[in-house]
């Protein structure tokens, strides 16, 4: 089971990546190495948070998505849209305009994922009532769930066992269409995702249950399509925004933002966003430093899903628009009428098992061997300079020491060790260059005036 790898939506385009250290330095789990002049991601360590993509100066990271034409494999084409999709548009573009254009683009139905939040909320309250170990941790953000799996495995039992709104809404909508007599094979449900981590939920099938979602469309892609559709047209849309689109209430609208869940849970509840803040806080939870907290809402992105890597709009403006909407619809409560009969159907299908711990820090499964390796790591650290420059292709000296012990790098990968070796005539200058080329790619040190900031930038 330990060998089984996470599915990853984040990929590196080797044609664009020129091998710098930005992504490697920001990765919160230290999952990136530079080899042969390109960034490479360690699949079992990556949590799909998207920080690398945000940091890349040349847009070399991309998120795999399904071909848009795939929607036409189905007669009924449902777009599941989270509230942040609306939030990112300027406020003079109305919700119905956005949905009309989405129908022009080929979707037969548009459904907002947060409509099923009440079902999730109910299950969360039930679980919180029964829980013995506190704080409970929300299962909403998949990047956080993965973070706990790899970095805080002792806390996996405290993650709630409720699926996020995507699954719940997909389960509902599929059943609703089936009840209307639509054959399952004709139903295509597509999730419009604000981030990489949510794709993984769709693409990693849970034990013996296929995902209720047929495909994923990146939000930035759809944003451009919709905006183009609106701009290229004078007057209003030729299509109606479609039925089954009641307004979301304030709880639903703000559910994916920071402080979306916490105000609705019982007891002492905290909302923490941005991955480094989350890591810092989980360290303390793990040490038992945090007492008497009942519920933790943790989000990998700053401002919650408004800060998702695929959300085009500025995250603060997106959150502002959604908060204004929540205020505007403050009198709407509960689920839309046609969801009510499906409450129990959904409730019985949206629980998940405890995620597996996947500790990434361990040096070896055998404690004795791990001890020996740690001794070696400490010995190498006596020689490495502690500058954490990343010129070896590992994010810092300690990572390099661990990579050496795991036979994934050599002490001579360090440029400072190289100088020392040259001084003691243990390494020839040509050899040193070859080592650097192995990490940074051939001819990497040749003059190149087209790189960013150079004389002929971009030429």
């Amino acid at each position: 089971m330990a060998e089984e790898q996470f599915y990853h939506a984040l990929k590196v385009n080797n044609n664009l990546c020129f091998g710098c250290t930005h992504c490697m330095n920001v990765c919160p789990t230290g999952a990136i190495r530079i080899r042969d002049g390109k960034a490479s991601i360690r699949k079992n360590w990556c949590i799909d948070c998207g920080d690398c993509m945000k940091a890349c100066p040349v847009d070399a990271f991309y998120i795999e998505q399904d071909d848009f034409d795939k929607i036409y494999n189905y007669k009924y084409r449902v777009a599941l849209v989270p509230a942040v999709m609306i939030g990112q548009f300027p406020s003079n573009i109305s919700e119905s305009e956005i949905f009309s254009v989405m129908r022009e683009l080929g979707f037969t139905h548009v459904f907002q994922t947060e409509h099923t939040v009440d079902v999730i909320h109910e299950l969360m309250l039930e679980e919180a009532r029964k829980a013995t170990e506190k704080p409970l941790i929300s299962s909403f953000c998949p990047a956080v769930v993965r973070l706990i799996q790899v970095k805080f495995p002792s806390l996996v039992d405290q993650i709630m066992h409720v699926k996020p709104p995507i699954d719940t809404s997909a389960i509902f909508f599929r059943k609703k269409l089936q009840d209307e007599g639509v054959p399952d094979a004709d139903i295509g449900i597509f999730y419009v995702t604000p981030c990489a981590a949510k794709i993984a939920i769709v693409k990693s099938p849970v034990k013996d249950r296929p995902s209720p979602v047929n495909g994923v469309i990146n939000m930035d892609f759809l944003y451009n399509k919709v905006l183009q559709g609106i701009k290229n047209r004078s007057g209003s849309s030729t299509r109606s925004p479609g039925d089954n689109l009641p307004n979301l209430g304030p709880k639903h609208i703000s559910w994916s933002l920071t402080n979306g869940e916490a105000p609705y849970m019982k007891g002492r509840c905290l909302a923490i966003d941005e991955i480094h803040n989350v890591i810092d806080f989980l360290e303390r939870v793990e040490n038992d430093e945090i007492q008497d907290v009942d519920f933790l809402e943790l989000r990998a992105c700053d401002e919650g899903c408004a800060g998702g890597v695929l959300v085009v709009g500025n995250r603060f403006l997106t959150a502002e628009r959604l908060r204004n909407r929540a205020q505007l619809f403050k009198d709407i409560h509960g689920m839309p009428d046609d969801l009510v009969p499906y409450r129990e159907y959904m409730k019985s299908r949206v629980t998940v098992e405890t995620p597996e711990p996947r500790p990434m820090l361990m040096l070896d499964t055998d404690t004795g061997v791990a001890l020996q390796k740690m001794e070696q790591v400490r010995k190498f650290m006596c020689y490495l300079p502690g500058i954490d420059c990343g010129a070896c292709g590992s994010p810092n000296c300690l990572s390099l020491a661990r990579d050496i012990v795991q036979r994934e790098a050599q002490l001579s990968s360090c440029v400072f060790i190289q100088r020392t070796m040259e001084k003691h005539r243990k390494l020839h200058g040509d050899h040193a260059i070859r080592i650097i080329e192995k990490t940074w790619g051939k001819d990497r040190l040749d003059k190149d005036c087209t790189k960013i900031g150079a004389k002929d930038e971009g030429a």
Partner: protein
Amino acid sequence: MEFRYEIEGGNFSRAGHASSAVKKILKQLNVDNRVIKRVVVALYEGEVNVVAHADKGSMLVDIDEQRIKIRIEDTGPGIPDIDLAMQAGFSTASAAVREMGFGAGMGLPNMKKNTDQMRVTSEVGKGTQVEMITWFSQ
């Protein structure tokens, strides 16, 4: 393998650094999560005790394949009655320390609960030594 961490008396903002460091080590050694949790809770309590009561102290950690041995020693006021100090809820912490959320009188009892062996020695006016051993497999 041995590790040594210094603990600064009175500096609550750094309380938890040594226990976090030990936690990271144990994770790398693939020690059972439940064992790590017990060790870290005991260490954190011990660390806070030094910060709250002593001028300074140190934590000496010795790890082998089977167990972790920790010795926390401080130069501080010492404990006049160790049996009393081991009682849940007994505390000599100052009002200021309690205001910060510490000093509930659960430190030593919690440490004992979360380790397999614990021994406390102390001399009033000089300092306190706590030795704890926890085995990796029960």
